[in-house]
């Protein structure tokens, strides 16, 4: 039998910092957030659920290309409907400012409802509202046709949606306990679902997570998709370079100095 061999080489140093983006110190910081996200996934799995039935799945996504692809999908969805446009475009910026994104989905809300006749979906005393709108045989829902012109292929079992809410709530509670920033988003969840994350789920919520000085999910300004830190930095690169060009001089021979009291000439005249 293979025995566990303990690694006793316990020494080292880990420099962790937020600046500059994607530097070794920033990637180490992101790995700290990833650990928190993994613990949040634990909370998802142990969240309360109706009848103790397992019905949630989690997809943890991170990496420069992966995050950018999600942000672009959110932007695509934003432009599909006027009522989503502004808020979702703001939220795409938040995606880019996130370290890790947790997708949490419910695998039963569209296919295997609670069947308890609670009436939350349609306001009736049985589950007829759900089944009348589904393609099913004797209560077994056929989900093989996954085409839908709606963002979510409803109706859904609202009791199972409630279970999804418990799961998301637990993830957020753990995030708050671990003091990483996180918020639940419909836009990012729908984007993730369309991209194939949480592949067995009928509804997906995204919880982006970040461990930065400024919480990416609060205190945003108007036109956030146009005016944000990424844009401000890029704008600095754009403006500052040109400003240098139009003020060029040979610093080895002459550097303008501030004018002293009593000087007649300007510093630039010498």
């Amino acid at each position, binding site marked *: 039998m293979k025995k566990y061999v303990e690694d006793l080489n316990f020494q080292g140093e880990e420099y962790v910092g937020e600046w500059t983006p994607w530097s070794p110190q920033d990637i180490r910081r992101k790995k700290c957030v990833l650990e928190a996200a993994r613990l949040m996934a634990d909370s998802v799995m142990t969240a309360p659920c109706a009848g103790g039935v397992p019905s949630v799945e989690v997809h943890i996504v991170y990496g420069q290309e992966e995050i950018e692809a999600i942000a672009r999908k959110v932007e695509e969805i934003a432009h599909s409907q006027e*009522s989503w446009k502004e808020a979702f475009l703001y939220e795409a910026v938040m995606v880019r400012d996130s370290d890790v994104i947790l997708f949490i989905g419910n695998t039963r809300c569209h296919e295997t409802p609670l069947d308890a006749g609670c009436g939350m979906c349609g306001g*009736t005393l049985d589950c007829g509202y759900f089944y009348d709108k589904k393609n099913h045989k004797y209560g077994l829902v056929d989900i093989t046709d996954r085409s839908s012109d709606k963002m979510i292929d409803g109706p859904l079992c609202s009791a199972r949606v*409630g279970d999804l809410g418990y799961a998301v709530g637990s993830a957020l509670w753990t995030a708050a306990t671990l003091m990483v920033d996180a918020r639940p988003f419909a836009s990012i969840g729908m984007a993730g679902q369309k991209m194939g994350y949480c592949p067995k789920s009928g509804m997906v919520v995204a919880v982006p997570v970040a461990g930065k000085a400024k919480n990416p999910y609060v205190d945003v300004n108007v036109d956030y998709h146009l005016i944000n830190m990424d844009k401000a930095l890029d704008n600095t690169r754009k403006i500052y370079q040109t400003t240098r060009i139009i003020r060029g001089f040979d610093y080895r021979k002459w550097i303008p100095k501030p004018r002293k009291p009593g000087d007649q000439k300007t510093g630039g005249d010498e």
Partner: protein
Amino acid sequence: MGHLIGKEYCLDHLIEVAKSIVLAIHKAPQITGRTKIEAEIIWGKDLEPIIEVMGPVAKVMRYVQWDYETIKNCYDKGEAPVIISIGAKLSSSNLNWNCGACGHDTCKDFNAYANEYRGGGQLGGPSCNWKVLDWAMACDWACASAAQYRVDNRIMGSLGFAMNALGFMPGMDSQLGLALGPPRDMVYYSRDEMHKSMSYEMDKQDMVNCVPTMFTAFPGGGTPMYKTKDDWWAPPEFMGIGYSDEVMEVYQQVLFEQVPEIVVKHADRIAARYKNKE
């Protein structure tokens, strides 16, 4: 200076803990930021109508029976839990997301349908599923908050049904109840109160009823025998499936006769509280 002895002060303190939990309910994050959620705390003698409504339902729903007997036994022993009712406005959408999760093409269609069928289910409904998510997150934060205070707790649809029937939180479309305490372990999971409340035979019959595949003999013949006793083949037993007048009659009696009778007894007194608050 002081000296607290006994358990009485712990039971009293549950109310203070409940108030802190309500803070967590209101602090819980939302996806929409537009779901109206309210919470109320109920304890002592005011639990009596709730327990009374759960009584007849417990006869036809096993999970309600477990909740009912646990809460009633604790109450009768002078160790009553404190209940937090968590309600939400779910039956109208002000989102205009037209996402389809409710089964309608647009939020406008959903609102028109909801106006007609509002409150028709045991737990309310119809519901905007994004608002259900917000509400469930608040309920989850209530549970998590209670757990951090190390108070045994469970979120219950049975309590929600009873409180909804009695007219608690009239402005809310759906309610769930969070039972808190009494201060000890194993109140709502592996329930102490339910010890010796069922026989071996009852447990076995539940299993046969609810998980029949566990007891199915060779199915190749098309009408399998069921292994409901040690010598299950002598004589063999078969599963019967059909409409039950008896079951449906009891169910109807409970929902449309017994529960309304109890509600009528208490509804005016509960409604008056909300009227006095206006």
